[in-house]
């Protein structure tokens, strides 16, 4: 069974997106990147992010990650760290075990260089 299936698949993503997105919007370090008025559009992208780091089905390549983040001005390691931190808090609240959290953080971390375009 894949990590994504173990977590509960799409239902797990849906449960996590509420908690995670609320944390992101409330976090001064990164909220300005997500502050567009189109919340529905953002929610779709949050789901894409969570599906990806849960190891779920997605078609994103490293190149997509570069393209998708290069317009975000001033993005650096502290922002990636913040996202991974909030992701960890979210998963803890949902009762996900430490090993799985570490694995998910690892997936997020694996695209760090692409996201930061270096």
């Amino acid at each position, binding site marked *: 069974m894949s990590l994504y299936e173990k977590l509960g698949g799409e239902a797990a993503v849906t449960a996590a997106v509420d908690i995670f997105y*609320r944390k992101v919007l*409330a976090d001064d370090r990164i909220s300005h990147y997500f502050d567009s*008025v189109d919340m*529905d559009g953002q929610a779709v*992208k949050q789901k894409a992010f969570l599906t990806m780091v849960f190891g779920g089905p997605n078609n994103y390549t490293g190149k997509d990650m570069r393209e998708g983040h290069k317009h975000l001005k001033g993005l650096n390691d502290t922002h990636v760290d913040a996202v991974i931190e909030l992701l960890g808090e979210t998963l803890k609240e949902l009762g996900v075990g430490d090993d799985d959290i570490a694995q998910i953080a690892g997936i997020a971390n694996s695209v760090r260089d692409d996201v930061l375009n270096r």
Partner: protein
Amino acid sequence: MAKLFYNADQLDSTGDVSVLDTLHSAGFLIPSSCRAGLCHACLLRADEGDIPALAQKGLSETEKRQRLFLGCQCFPVTDMKISTPDASRTVQARLLELSMLTQDVMRLRLKADVDWFPGQYTTLWKDASLGRSYSIASHPVRDGFMELHIKRYPDGMLSRWLAEQVHVGHELEISLPRGSCFYTETSSHQPLLLACTGTGLAPLYGVVQDALGQGHQRPIHLFAAAGTPDQLYLVHELRLLEQTYSNFHYYPVCRRNAQPNMQEGDLVELISNRYKDLKGWKVFLCGSPMAVKKLQKKCFLQGASMSDIHADAFESPLARSA
């Protein structure tokens, strides 16, 4: 740069221009209206290529499986081969009644052989390329007609045509109703917060009556906002409902010149100051896009779950492309 193949033509597409705009610029007549992913007039099919998730937001599972997507919401990431699906369905609706609710809000009652949930919207077509979406205030069985509240703009392409050229007895063309702004029994245990500006009252009036009709027992709070008191409508009907149902509360809000039994101020501020904890609430928001989007975010940050917030921003295609 991704390539689009449409019929025999090949078009270049950059990721920041929608498939709809690319086809329009090339001179193809693809129906469209809201340009905001709401009316589904611009439905297309991808015969090859990846469909970005956003382009299928709000589509049914069946539609997704048929590889349909919304042209106005599709920013291609790969090459795509595109075709037009079988004509999207419209039906005839006969105008039964046209009256004024305020100086510039018309009430249309239509007879149409379709089904809907009060609060959903339909798209009304002047001709094959000019359509606008309007929300439904009535119940298909209890009322037996489709009621729309339409604000008339002096230079509004559809609303002015309706006001000046359309008369009782005329047959109008409408799309099948859609949208998720309606009451379901699954919310019977939740308190409801409904907030609107202007004709955003149409769908919410439908939702409130449907909830009460289905015996909703938990609190129902309706905020209806307008610029001045004379722009509020259905005030009398809503006050009567308030007297009949102890769990229903109606709060009219005006920007200016509020009368004693109304609140004065900004709808977004009023709501965010008054509802600090919306955990467990079901929220319905309709009307001006700015107000709806601000409220959507506020309500989410103040505890309502994303899936419990139904927001219909009354997007205007002209305002968006301007």
